[in-house]
């Protein structure tokens, strides 16, 4: 069985080389890489600094006086508690939050969205300059810097690009390929050999997973994304689970169509509704409430957590089960359609 699955997977990859699918898959990471570079180049820094302070926090009195005196460049907003301050920061209303650090009311921890951004450097330099002007010391009030997310816009956009890649393989490439094999009677020809229906299906899904992993690997190599081994394995597990689920769904969509043209149309009809709610869930309340009901969210949310917040498979056991379950159901439906030579 494994032998036939390998033969057919290699055959599918050879077709991908012939019909330029592989170039498409490799082009997208390059396109994303260039797009991300342009995003970074266009990052503008607002000269005004918006700092949040906690109403109940005990800050160095000299720091409070100095910050108030520098109200031309530093705008201070008081927050009721730490959670409210974090929300305020994440929603983009502020540039950083100062939280008392230790018990002596001498130091603060600076919470920022991104540690290595120009904005963070500006905040730290401005506050250090104020302190130097006051008592000749620097690097004293700010004892630590904590980023909310590990990195900036580049990394924040990565999960969306990865979701786009996985859905593209699942709903654009695979349905058209399956429908083509049906339309040109190539699948019927293959079923004239001792290959099992399940072997053909597994080969198609393996092909989808290989395309997904290949494209994601290239994208991460181009963006120099550093992984620990454990984190990489967690990420790979979700890539494989997502690749399996959406490839299986794509094969099923291909079986529902008689021609390549109808498969492309139906594929796009699945592609956009699966992409947009998940990718835009963080920016819209209605989409945020809809997204958890969309299968792509079970892939997007864990990948986002693994890439940006250090999450792992253990944090999303139901999501990975949902992906595998949906994939198995789709494969079962495809198997039944194949056995009955549906629209062949």
């Amino acid at each position, binding site marked *: 069985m494994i032998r*036939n699955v390998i*033969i057919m997977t290699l*055959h599918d990859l*050879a*077709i991908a080389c*012939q*019909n330029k699918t592989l170039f498409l898959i490799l082009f997208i990471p390059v396109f994303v890489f260039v797009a991300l570079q342009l995003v970074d180049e266009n990052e503008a820094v607002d000269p005004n600094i918006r700092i949040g302070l906690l109403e109940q926090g005990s800050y160095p009195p000299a720091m409070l006086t100095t910050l108030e005196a520098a109200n031309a460049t530093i705008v201070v907003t008081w927050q009721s508690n730490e959670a409210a301050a974090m929300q305020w920061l994440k929603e983009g209303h502020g540039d950083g939050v100062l939280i008392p650090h230790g018990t002596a009311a001498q130091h603060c921890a600076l919470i920022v969205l991104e540690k290595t951004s120009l904005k963070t450097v500006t905040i730290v330099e401005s506050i250090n300059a104020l302190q130097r002007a006051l008592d000749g010391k620097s690097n004293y009030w700010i004892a630590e810097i904590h980023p909310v997310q590990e990195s900036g816009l580049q990394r924040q956009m990565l999960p969306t690009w990865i979701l786009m890649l996985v859905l593209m393989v699942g709903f654009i490439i695979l349905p058209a390929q399956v429908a083509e094999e049906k339309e*040109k*009677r*190539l699948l*019927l*020809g*293959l*079923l*004239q*050999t*001792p*290959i*099992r229906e399940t072997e053909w299906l597994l080969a198609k899904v393996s092909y989808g997973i290989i395309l997904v992993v290949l494209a994601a690997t290239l994208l991460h190599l181009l963006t120099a994304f550093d992984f620990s081994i454990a984190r990489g394995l967690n990420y790979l597990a979700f890539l494989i689970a997502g690749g399996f689920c959406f490839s299986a769904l794509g094969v099923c969509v291909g079986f529902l169509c008689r021609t390549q043209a109808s498969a492309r149309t139906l594929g796009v009809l699945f592609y956009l509704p699966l992409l947009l709610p998940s990718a835009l869930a963080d920016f819209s309340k209605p989409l945020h409430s809809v997204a958890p009901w969309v299968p792509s969210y079970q892939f997007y949310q864990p990948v986002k957590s693994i890439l940006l917040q250090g999450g792992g498979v253990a944090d999303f056991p139901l999501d990975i089960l949902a992906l595998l379950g949906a994939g198995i159901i789709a494969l079962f439906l495809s198997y039944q359609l194949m*056995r*009955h*030579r549906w629209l*062949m």
Partner: protein
Amino acid sequence: MVCPVTLQVQGISKAYTSQRRLLAIDFSVREGELIAVVGHNGAGKSTLLKLLGGWLVPDGGEVQIDGIDQRNRRAIVRKVGFVPEVPNLFECFSVEYNLSLFARLFRAPSSSVETALREFSLLPYRRSKVRVLSKGLKQRVSIARSLLANPSLVLLDEPTSGLDFDMTTEVHELLKRIHASGKTILFTSHRPEEIKSLATRIMVLHQGALIFDGPPSEYFESDTHRNLYT
């Protein structure tokens, strides 16, 4: 000496619509026969061959090939070679690749590909992509591929459709050679001269029903032939 039965068909039927259907038909085919299935367009000839080749799932009836039930697909595919009217080859790959892929799936030795290339005079085209081949050459590749597993029964759906005189003659020679090697052949055709020169038995389908089954001499003298082609 009576040859053993290769193909046994009992009540096989398939309905697309009330107008277009293959009624339940029964027949058996003995080893070494070369049968022409004839009839008007839509009579059910291709449907019959597709049912026997496993391309279609019958609504009812039973088919046995060399004593093996057709529902046992993985066993039956080694017994039947099916050549469709339009060759279903992987056009973006070479002739050799197309044959090798099927040989691997049949677990046939790699030498079988060389043999097929040689026997069907395809050696000069082994590295040519199928898409650049003429229809006649594609048909030759398709026939060669169907014989890779050395099946006892070969089904050909209008093997000379759309071919010029030379290519048609070439396919006829191929069919005679395959028949001479002891294989049983069923082919569909619209050409009386082709049927006359090749067939050892003729089956006529009309509106999904089998209306004639007998030797060519009897067929060409019968009203069935006169009604069909006049």
